[in-house]
């Protein structure tokens, strides 16, 4: 049976057309773009083309606003650390409780070691930002606001444009981690107040180990990695040429498929979601169904645990992911679902299905066919589930 891959928010398959575009840059066009000979010049113009392709996907005004990085995490780190250096006298960061660890771990470290104050803005039960708390946190001390465009676990989309305008009213810079949004939702940064934006290649059918930071023209910037003059001095180190070429091609393909993503992929996601809700009792969708990525659906199955669900799904050839504690090695369930106050009875059993343009109707059929029995098998074993049917609340461990 053909495996069903519904974990595209974790990573996507590199599009074969992307790989094809990359290959000559390993063996034939291997030059260093900085070199004063034809080998270098060819590569230099290829890099310029890639930058234009990304500019087109983001709808940004200038191609030199794109700075290539090793991925989304580096871009996030570079953006926040730069702002702290350029925003003299401002020692506060505002971010949300549902950011990726690339942002949350960094700001926690800065708060602990560098006399920086961090405001973590909470979300409501649907994962929407607490706008009132955000408004109150903004002030003359705010150096930068970093809030994601879309959440990786629930797909909830944040009103980044409005958030950026509010940040600017307070004189703060606005950065968004758009790793999950780029290639899935249309963007027009030329008309936007967003100052910096992070993206990652492998989330949009590009290669791993490559990403970019968009830095709007005029925004002062201090590099994270110092050394040579590459990327106009904003990111030193010889360019990862094949990966950059691949990222450019992936951006071009993402733009071509944008309509498909918004319509066909979204329709498949909706069919999957409605089908699961209809055939399985005691489960619900997490996140903001009215403002969500077209490819993501996160469903919490009550009274069972996510890793066990994934293992049984994997046995049936279906790949998805969970915010469950047990898959990550920690004991707390997903910080995103906890921030949304999803009860423990369900947070441990939340499964994220993330589709892509490569997902087919047959894939969705297969998941709809398999999931009811997977869930039923585990619930049969769960003390909480049985007790619900037989004696309400009788399961009573000594420590709870």
């Amino acid at each position, binding site marked *: 049976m053909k495996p069903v891959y519904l974990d595209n928010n974790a990573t996507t398959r590199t599009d074969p057309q992307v790989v094809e575009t990359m290959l000559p840059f390993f063996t034939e066009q291997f030059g260093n773009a900085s070199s004063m000979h034809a080998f270098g010049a060819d590569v230099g113009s290829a890099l310029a083309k890639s930058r234009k392709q990304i500019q087109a996907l983001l709808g940004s005004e200038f191609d030199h606003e794109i700075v290539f990085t090793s991925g989304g995490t580096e871009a996030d780190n570079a953006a926040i650390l730069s702002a702290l250096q350029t925003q003299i006298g401002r020692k506060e960061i505002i971010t949300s409780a549902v950011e990726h660890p690339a942002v949350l771990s960094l700001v926690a470290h800065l708060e602990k070691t560098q006399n920086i104050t961090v405001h973590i803005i909470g979300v409501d039960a649907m994962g929407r930002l607490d706008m009132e708390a955000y408004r109150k946190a903004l002030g003359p001390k705010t150096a930068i606001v970093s809030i994601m465009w879309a959440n990786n676990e629930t797909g909830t989309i944040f009103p980044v444009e409005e958030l950026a305008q509010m940040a600017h009213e307070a004189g703060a810079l606005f950065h968004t981690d758009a790793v999950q949004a780029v290639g899935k939702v249309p963007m027009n940064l030329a008309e936007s107040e967003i100052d910096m934006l992070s993206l990652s290649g492998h989330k949009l059918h590009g290669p791993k180990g490559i990403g970019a930071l968009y830095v709007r023209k005029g925004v002062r910037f201090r590099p994270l990695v110092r050394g040579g003059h590459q990327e106009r001095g904003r990111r030193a180190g010889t360019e990862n040429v094949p990966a950059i070429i691949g990222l450019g091609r992936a951006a071009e393909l993402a733009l071509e498929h944008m309509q498909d993503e918004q319509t066909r992929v979204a329709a498949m996601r909706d069919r999957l979601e409605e089908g699961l809700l209809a055939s399985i009792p005691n489960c619900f969708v997490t996140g903001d169904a009215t403002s969500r990525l077209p490819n993501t659906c996160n469903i919490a199955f009550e*009274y069972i645990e996510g890793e066990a669900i994934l293992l*049984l799904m994997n046995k049936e050839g279906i790949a998805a992911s969970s915010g469950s504690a047990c898959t990550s090695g920690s*004991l707390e369930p997903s910080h995103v679902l906890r921030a949304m106050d999803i009860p423990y009875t369900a947070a441990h059993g939340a499964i994220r299905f993330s589709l892509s343009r490569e997902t087919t109707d047959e894939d969705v059929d297969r998941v709809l066919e398999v999931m009811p029995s997977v869930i039923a098998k585990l619930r*049969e*074993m769960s*003390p909480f589930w*049985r007790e619900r049917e037989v004696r309400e609340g009788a*399961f009573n*461990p*000594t420590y709870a």
Partner: protein
Amino acid sequence: MWDYSDKVKEYFYNPKNSGVLEDASGVGDVGAISCGDALRLMIKVDEPTQVITEAKFQTFGCGSAIASSSALTEIIIGKTIDEAMSLTNQDIADFLGGLPPEKMHCSVMGYEALHAAVANYRGEVWEDDHEEGALLCKCFGIDEGMIERTVRQNGLTSIEEITNFTKAGGGCSTCAEGLEEVLERVNAEMVSEGVLAAETAFDRTRAVQPVRRKKKDLEPVATGKAPLTTLQKIRLIEETIETIRPTLQRDGGDCELVDVDGNRVMVKLTGACVGCQLSGATIEGVQAKLVEAVGVPLLVIPVAMVH
């Protein structure tokens, strides 16, 4: 993806003895839905012989939690209560062909459920010994309270000592930063209470990074003394192993000297050391101690490997 043994997978995909045991003689509930795993163990005991004739489980948890629960029932059926109570969580892990270090707590949960079920059968109240405070070392399930208590009681001043006394930090070592914070705080408190000299207290700014000893450091040290006779060497090896044994015994393990052949020292690890995923580290530690004591390069070989 976790590196589960085939036996863990087998016991997860096709668990034995899952379900409700009607008219059980003892029921043990441990864990909580908030922790991500919970287990109910139900046993039936034959009163005159004290033999556990039936056991069933219900588990909310990950793959290894379900496999551990099922393994537990398989192990205890047919055993007397006393025999079952002498089992350790390691026995459950061994039965399953080992568990990833981060999943060892699943076997601990099985052990606790057994004790809770037996207490329930005997009409006693089972008290868990879970302490307050954040769980620091997830590999071995060691919380902040236990580390603080051990540091205070034993006057510990280094991370290595904490690992030796509590195992915390001995697995994946991602908790190293957290351990340093607790150690620094507790040591500072001890200094201000006058029970620890300020110069010995742990201080992150002065802490030296542990360095893996290079091969040449293991060469014999020129002591000016005459080289040891073979008999002297073997005696010294014997004496050194005797000093190491109490540490291993504290964790339910043991180590005995089997033979010495030139610079090859054959030892046998027994008890909890058998099948322990850290036995490689134990052998390494024994070797370092012996080389230090004897002053010549030695190779310690666990006998299970020489046939």
